[in-house]
């Protein structure tokens, strides 16, 4: 029986639910000292003086360091825009690290940090891209002379087409800033001893961290070991570098003691990279039938106070995917990366693609409003037909691999009763006791499976492949080592499923190990919905190689031809003669015994490492339908139903695929209705706790109704496209399209996220369109 596609129980769960998981903070080493940061309370200021004397006298404090007395290279980042590891002379956002206090325990360190006094000379503050681009705006980087730190202008060759089109609509829309807020904040523990550095970190890409930290510290990679044990979520924010990861090893070396840092939730909300934070100008031109003639997109990407390489790349991803799943003959894109006095912005679940899906799916609904055509019909008239794949887009990066966009919509309308919802909507509008109903759609598409050669190198990674090592143990069990270190995905389960199918070894005799650069071959990490599409493919490639070699051993034992053997359920047998059989255990054992294997074989050959490459990205897609209810009196907006059709190609584990979609959709609903990081005019965060930053929980979410289409990708032999980010890409436009649909009788054409009850109430009052 094939395990790929089977509903197996997660191998990870017994440990996690019985409290036996091990996260970095659970790692205790004798003699560990603790560090706590003094962080800027000003959004933009000159540092006039730092007084550490009182902190030094605090009981238990070992030392206090600032940029003055700790020589630190800047963080690895964007050339010309390097971020000081501890603030020098100037701070650029609230939460920036200024000083670090090390003490015997975390209590003393926190007490000491409170006794460091920083004298600031406040500077003018910009908290939005508009403020930052204004004439005479305060500059974050005087030497650059502008807060626009990178600009990709549009050739603007389509102005004539847009001008000449029968119809066009322009929108300025905001993709609200979100905080990733993983359950486990950033935690690290550095132990720099005579034999080198061991760094435990809550991180998504251990080798990336190892290579970067070792070169930053100037030590050889063999003497630098990074361990990422159980990681409590990352959502992209644990791929990018922040100062703690470099300061902990520095101080461990200096003090000759292990140093631990456990980020507080308050710090996590201001210091961990934020996501989204885009504004967009969108122009869409179309004919009388709703066929799109041209699309023009201008992205204003807020980078926060410091530019991260991933953050700088977000608008490239957004503009690459701007045309979504539609045939658009003329697409022009442009963007600006802009620094502001806010938390830096980088990858957050979807990273650039939710922003694309949101803009094109909102634009499609604008066509529907304008021509009074049903939004489903507008989509159908513009889908890329199934026979057009591979499909070259306006972007050199994106050649769509495969898809069935109309098929996803057909399936969506199968699982939801669209006509009944429209009827109910009509009735509810007239009935004062009933909520307003809105129904919204999103035919979303994203770019995943990062990726083909060159796709991650630009973000500072060593490569875009993924490493897998398959090692058969002498008893016939197998250990899979993967560089795609997970942070909650269930990789230990899915990779064991794939390995079981292609090795012919039982699922229970396969372990998957990850997250230790000392034992795992050089890998890349889990990001960009790539683990299964690249790493999982690697498991298959390596397993197939191993079985080829094992068949030689089995054939030798059975005195048969290797080509005549099959492997299944832990046994090798001769095709057509099932009685002639030898167990995997016997084959494995024999493979380690030089006198018993074929002469041309080496002992221990059932061990192979592959660096799996893929030729192209994969493009998961789907069709989502959302029904919202709006309280006519209070504006309270709730998602009543969510219909989700996903096409991620081959599904390895249906249960995990559903879980990924549910989690992603929850985050998408959160962005659309609840979450937004906000600052006051002085750059002070006003959403720094979970009281004010509204992460919805189960009671706020509907029961999801799921459907599935499967269009395998040709880019890997599994046919799997990746699914980690899908929900967060598809849900926001579906929800907002539904919210606007509920308000269409008031001629509303757009509501910016998050659609809070107060915002909706003002619209119901006639205060905004």
């Amino acid at each position, binding site marked *: 029986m094939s395990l790929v596609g089977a509903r197996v129980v997660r191998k990870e769960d017994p440990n996690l639910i019985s409290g036996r998981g091990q996260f970095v903070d659970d790692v205790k080493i004798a003699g560990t000292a603790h560090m706590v940061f003094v962080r800027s309370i000003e959004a933009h200021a000159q540092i006039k003086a730092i007084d550490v004397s009182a902190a030094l006298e605090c009981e238990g404090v070992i030392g206090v360091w600032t940029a003055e007395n700790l020589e630190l290279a800047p963080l690895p980042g964007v050339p010309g825009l390097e971020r000081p590891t501890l603030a020098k002379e100037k701070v650029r956002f609230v939460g920036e690290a200024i000083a670090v206090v090390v003490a015997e325990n*975390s*209590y003393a360190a*926190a*007490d000491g940090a*409170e006794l460091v006094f920083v004298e600031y000379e406040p500077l003018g503050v910009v908290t939005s891209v508009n403020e930052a681009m204004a004439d005479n705006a305060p500059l974050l980087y005087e030497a650059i002379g502008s807060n626009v730190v990178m600009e990709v202008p549009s050739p603007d060759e389509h102005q004539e087409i847009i001008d000449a089109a029968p119809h066009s609509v322009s929108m300025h829309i905001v993709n609200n800033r979100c905080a990733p807020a993983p359950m486990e904040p950033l935690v690290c523990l550095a132990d720099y001893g005579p034999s080198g550095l061991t760094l435990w970190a809550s991180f998504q890409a251990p080798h990336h961290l190892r290579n970067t930290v070792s070169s930053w510290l100037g030590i050889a990679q063999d003497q630098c070991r990074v361990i990422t044990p159980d990681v409590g979520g990352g959502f992209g924010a644990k791929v990018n570098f922040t100062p703690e990861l470099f300061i902990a090893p520095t101080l461990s070396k200096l003090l000759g003691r292990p140093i631990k840092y456990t980020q*507080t*939730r*308050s710090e996590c909300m201001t210091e961990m990279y934020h996501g989204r934070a885009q504004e967009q100008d969108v122009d869409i031109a179309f004919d009388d039938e709703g066929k799109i003639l041209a699309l023009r997109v201008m992205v204003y990407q807020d980078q926060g106070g410091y530019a991260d390489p991933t953050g700088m790349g977000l608008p490239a991803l957004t503009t690459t995917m701007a045309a979504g799943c539609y045939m658009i003959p003329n697409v022009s894109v442009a963007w600006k990366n802009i620094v502001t006095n806010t938390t830096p912005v980088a990858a957050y679940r979807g990273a650039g693609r939710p922003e694309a899906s949101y803009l094109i799916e909102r634009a499609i609904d604008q066509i529907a409003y304008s021509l009074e055509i049903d939004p489903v019909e507008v989509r159908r008239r513009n889908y890329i037909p199934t026979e057009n794949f591979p499909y070259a887009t306006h972007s050199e990066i994106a050649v769509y691999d495969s898809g069935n966009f109309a098929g996803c919509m057909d399936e969506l309308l199968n699982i939801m009763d669209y006509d009944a919802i429209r009827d109910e909507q009509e009735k509810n509008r007239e009935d004062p006791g009933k909520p307003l109903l809105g129904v919204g759609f999103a035919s979303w598409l994203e770019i995943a499976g990062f990726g083909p050669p060159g796709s991650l190198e630009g973000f500072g990674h060593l490569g875009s492949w993924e490493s897998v090592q398959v090692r058969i143990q002498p008893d016939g069990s197998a250990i899979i080592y993967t560089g795609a270190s997970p942070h909650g995905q269930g990789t230990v389960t899915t990779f064991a499923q794939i390995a079981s199918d292609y090795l012919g070894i039982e699922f229970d005799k396969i372990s998957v190990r990850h997250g230790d650069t000392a034992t795992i071959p050089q890998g890349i990490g889990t990001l960009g919905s790539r683990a299964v599409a690249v790493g999982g493919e690697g498991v298959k490639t390596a397993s197939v190689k191993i079985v080829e070699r094992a068949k030689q051993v089995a054939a030798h034992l059975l005195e048969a031809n290797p080509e005549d053997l099959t492997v299944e359920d832990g046994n090798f047998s001769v095709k057509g003669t099932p009685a002639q059989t030898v167990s995997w255990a016997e084959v494995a054992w024999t493979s380690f015994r030089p006198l018993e294997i074929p002469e041309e074989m080496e002992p221990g050959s059932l061990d192979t490492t592959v660096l799996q490459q893929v030729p192209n990205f994969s493009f998961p897609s789907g069709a989502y339908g959302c029904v919202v209810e709006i309280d006519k*009196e*209070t504006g*309270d907006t709730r998602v009543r139903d969510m219909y989700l059709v996903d096409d991620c190609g081959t599904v390895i584990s249906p249960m995990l695929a559903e879980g990924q979609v549910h989690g992603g959709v929850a985050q998408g609903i959160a962005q659309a209705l*609840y979450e937004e990081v*906000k600052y006051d005019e002085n750059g002070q965060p*006003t*959403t720094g*706790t979970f*009281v*004010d930053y*509204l992460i*919805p*929980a189960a*009671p*706020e979410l509907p029961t999801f109704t799921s459907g599935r289409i499967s269009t395998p990708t040709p880019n890997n032999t599994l046919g799997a496209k990746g699914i980690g980010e899908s929900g967060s890409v598809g849900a926001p436009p579906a929800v907002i399209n539904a919210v606007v649909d509920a308000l269409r009788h008031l001629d509303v054409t757009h509501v910016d996220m998050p659609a*809070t*009850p*107060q915002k909706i*109430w*003002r619209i119901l009052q006639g205060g905004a369109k």
Partner: protein
Amino acid sequence: MIPAKFDYKPASSAEEAIALLAEYGDEAKIIAGGHSLLPLMKLRLANPEVLIDIGGINDLSFIEDKGDHIAVGALTRHRLVEQSDLLKEHIPLLAHTAGHVGDPQVRNRGTIGGSLCHGDPASDLPAVVLATRASLLITGPNGERKVEADDFFTDFWETAVAEDELLTEIQFPKFTGQEWSFQKFNRRAQDWAIVGCALQHSDNPGIGMINMGTTPVRASAAEAALKSGEANSDVADLADDGLSPPSDIHGQEDYRRHLSRVLLGRALDNS
């Protein structure tokens, strides 16, 4: 999220707690369930030098029928209030509202007295104390005194309980009317109300409002209108009369005023 250093003094009786308060004065804070105080301490917004823990004083956890009223010990957990048959029968508004405080973990830890002494205008239970016209027993070095609900909430996060005193008991007059309602408008199930309203409709109706001022407040104008028999919609229009709701990230003043009228209207229609 590490609090500043503090001394910890468990008290085994109300007398001992009061003696400890006398000893440590304004350096001390009483802790019961800790669900209001500990978050403030972890954010270092509150830095008491001494915590006097009354969590172990079992004598202060009770729900007793006293004839014309039900006496509730200050240390009674929300969960016990929520599940009490005595309260469901005689003060249904209280039992029902206790079931809307936070989430089950909070309700198993948090206490009615702790919630009231925190004096948070955004909390649910102070509105119930106002609506039910409860009395509060406060014990101090000079013995016990009784304070009416209207005199209990004195300022933002300030109550009539002096630094050397302890809230020991809340007395809820038995409800003899038929109609009551609790309305809470929030975004997430476990959140504080953006606006809320507790209504007890009897000969002397009580309406307590949540998050409509710097203290828990009574909707006096609406109460008077209700008492004089005005129509529900006219009563509801007076929900915010004379009140000064705050503007914050969860709602501007005008929105809160609007919500208060909607919620009181719903309370009246549902009661």
